[in-house]
């Protein structure tokens, strides 16, 4: 019986082996559609970035050794014109040269303006919004209004990204000075300091930009792939930020704060007058949550700084947590501390503090707060999710999260909790209990 049922099947297969032009057309059409669906976003992105035509970009070089809300002190601001992927012109202005050595009116956030009671800042200090996606359109509007620059988007990269790029390009010689991935950050700082008008810095930046661009065109496929990989990794870590509205593929690199369902933390720091210190300041977040039987929670968030500099480190630190949080206690080990100021927004509640960490020392602030129910249903149980979003420009941080389920609950799943983890990107943890 078995043999008889197999024979017709084998015969049918033989019949199907004969060429069928109709099926070949259908398969080819499906393959072409698949190819187009994959290729189109890349072609669109290549077009957006000026590899297929002419584009103008506002370029911001963030000095993340002096961390600011959207990635670092804006060391340089430039107008980059590209055509078919090649730089046609690049005007660079240092933060302390005209027109950027003037002040401009600052729009939000309320926590910053209220804490310092100010309404205007120097251009280089205006990136006080909590994410790049909010700041970039404000900056684009400002440069169009003040300087007549009409741009297709904004590209920001920080000193970490520049050093990573130079690991690919190898050493570059600018004005007979050899710049490597190991000394590029200090060379930029040195150029900033030796010239009060910023000429040395802008000269060096332009020199590096053109050398890197020239290498991109001349380099082997191996280097180009390595460079693309490095840029993608830097984008994922928010050291490269792109604001190009309307491009789905590149939109994920705009550094936007995205509040997913569940519990959420983002600590956004601004170094205030502590110079080039942030590469020598280690951050750690310690978070503990007690979920109550009604699903609400009591949270304790400790933000600690280990200052390895031989001078004091002063930071304006803001913790963004889910809207509806109620702060009931603030404790700090800092020698000088002001805060916490609570601000409420539609998506977030923020706690802001001004902390001074003495030289070669540590200091921390702990916020204790309650949160309304942040749980979601998960089958027969309840699901708690935590997302900790990394600030743009921060190289790394340590996080330790502990979540305690309600008394009597049985924990079914625990992911990412309990252990200190060295994280370079966003952090996620989940607890499911019944």
């Amino acid at each position: 019986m078995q043999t008889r049922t197999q024979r017709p099947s084998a015969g049918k297969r033989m019949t199907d082996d004969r060429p069928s032009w109709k099926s070949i057309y259908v398969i080819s059409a499906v393959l072409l559609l698949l190819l187009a669906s994959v290729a189109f976003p890349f072609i669109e992105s290549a077009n957006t970035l000026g590899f297929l035509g002419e584009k103008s970009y506002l370029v911001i070089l963030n000095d993340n050794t002096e961390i600011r809300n959207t990635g670092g002190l804006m060391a340089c601001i430039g107008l980059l014109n590209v055509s078919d992927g090649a730089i046609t012109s690049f005007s660079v202005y240092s933060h302390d040269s005209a027109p950027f050595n003037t002040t401009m009116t600052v729009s939000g956030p309320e926590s910053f303006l209220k804490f310092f009671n100010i309404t205007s800042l120097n251009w280089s200090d205006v990136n006080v919004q909590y994410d790049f996606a909010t700041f970039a359109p404000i900056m684009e509007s400002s440069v169009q209004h003040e300087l007549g620059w009409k741009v297709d988007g904004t590209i920001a990269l920080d000193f970490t990204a520049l050093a990573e790029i130079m690991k690919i390009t190898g050493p570059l010689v600018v004005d007979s000075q050899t710049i490597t991935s190991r000394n590029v950050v200090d060379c930029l700082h040195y150029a900033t300091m030796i010239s009060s008008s910023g000429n040395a810095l802008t000269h060096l930046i332009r020199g590096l930009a053109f050398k890197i661009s020239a290498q991109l065109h001349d380099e082997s496929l191996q280097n180009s792939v390595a460079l693309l990989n490095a840029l993608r990794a830097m984008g994922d870590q928010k050291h490269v930020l792109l604001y190009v509205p309307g491009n789905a593929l590149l939109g994920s690199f705009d550094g936007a704060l995205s509040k997913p369902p569940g519990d959420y933390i983002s600590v956004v720091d601004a170094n205030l007058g502590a110079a080039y210190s942030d590469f020598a300041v280690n951050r750690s977040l310690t978070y503990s949550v007690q979920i109550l039987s009604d699903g609400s929670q009591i949270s304790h968030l400790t933000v600690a700084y280990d200052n390895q500099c031989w001078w004091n480190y002063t930071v304006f630190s803001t913790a963004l947590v889910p809207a509806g949080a109620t702060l009931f206690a603030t404790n700090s080990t800092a020698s000088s501390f002001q805060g916490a100021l609570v601000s409420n927004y539609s998506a977030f509640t923020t706690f802001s503090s001004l902390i001074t960490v003495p030289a070669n020392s540590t200091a921390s602030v702990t916020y204790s707060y309650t949160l309304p129910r942040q749980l979601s249903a998960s089958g027969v149980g309840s699901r708690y999710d935590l997302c900790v979003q990394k600030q743009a420009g921060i190289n790394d941080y340590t996080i330790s999260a502990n979540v305690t389920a309600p008394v009597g609950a049985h924990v079914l799943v625990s992911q990412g909790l309990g252990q200190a983890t060295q994280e370079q990107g966003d952090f996620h943890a989940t607890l499911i209990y019944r």
Partner: protein
Amino acid sequence: MRAIPRALLAAVLICAIAVVAAALLSGLQSTPQDNIRYVAPVGAARATLGQTIGNGYVSLRLNGVSDANSPTTSDIWISDSSYAPLQRFPLAPPEGSKYLVANVTVTSAQNVSEPFRFSDFRLVGSDGNAYYPNNAVCDQGCSATVLRNYTLTPGQHGDLYVLFSVPSNISATQIVYSASDPAHGGQTALELNAES
């Protein structure tokens, strides 16, 4: 019988494609070299540790190379930093790296001002690679103008501390000063042995 060779053929093809793709991708994704192999300049003058040597414009003596985290070196760095353009420089190196500081006594050998840049120094590591300066401080003897203006004025004499970032397993074998020769063109090079 016909199904088996086809399956084998498909498996062999898939394996071959996977092997070729993996080889191609691993080759493409390997990071290019970021190091510069040091090649001794032709005609370089050489000195042992503690010996003074000159090129007609400047005389140099390497007094030693030490880790920036050693208390003596960090104390000197911090106290002399007021004479440096880049005053606040954290002495905590990135992970996997260390900072080495070369202490060089610099003396002007001319009665006119001469160009002098600390960026013309390089450190030759025990791996044979050249490393380029990150920063420098100098004591009152050579003053900040040497670093800020890239100029050595007549009669200047002082201690310069040049800091290099190197991989944490690398030690210094030489400190090399290589600069253009304003009078005769070309380059002059002084190789200062860092090992006693």
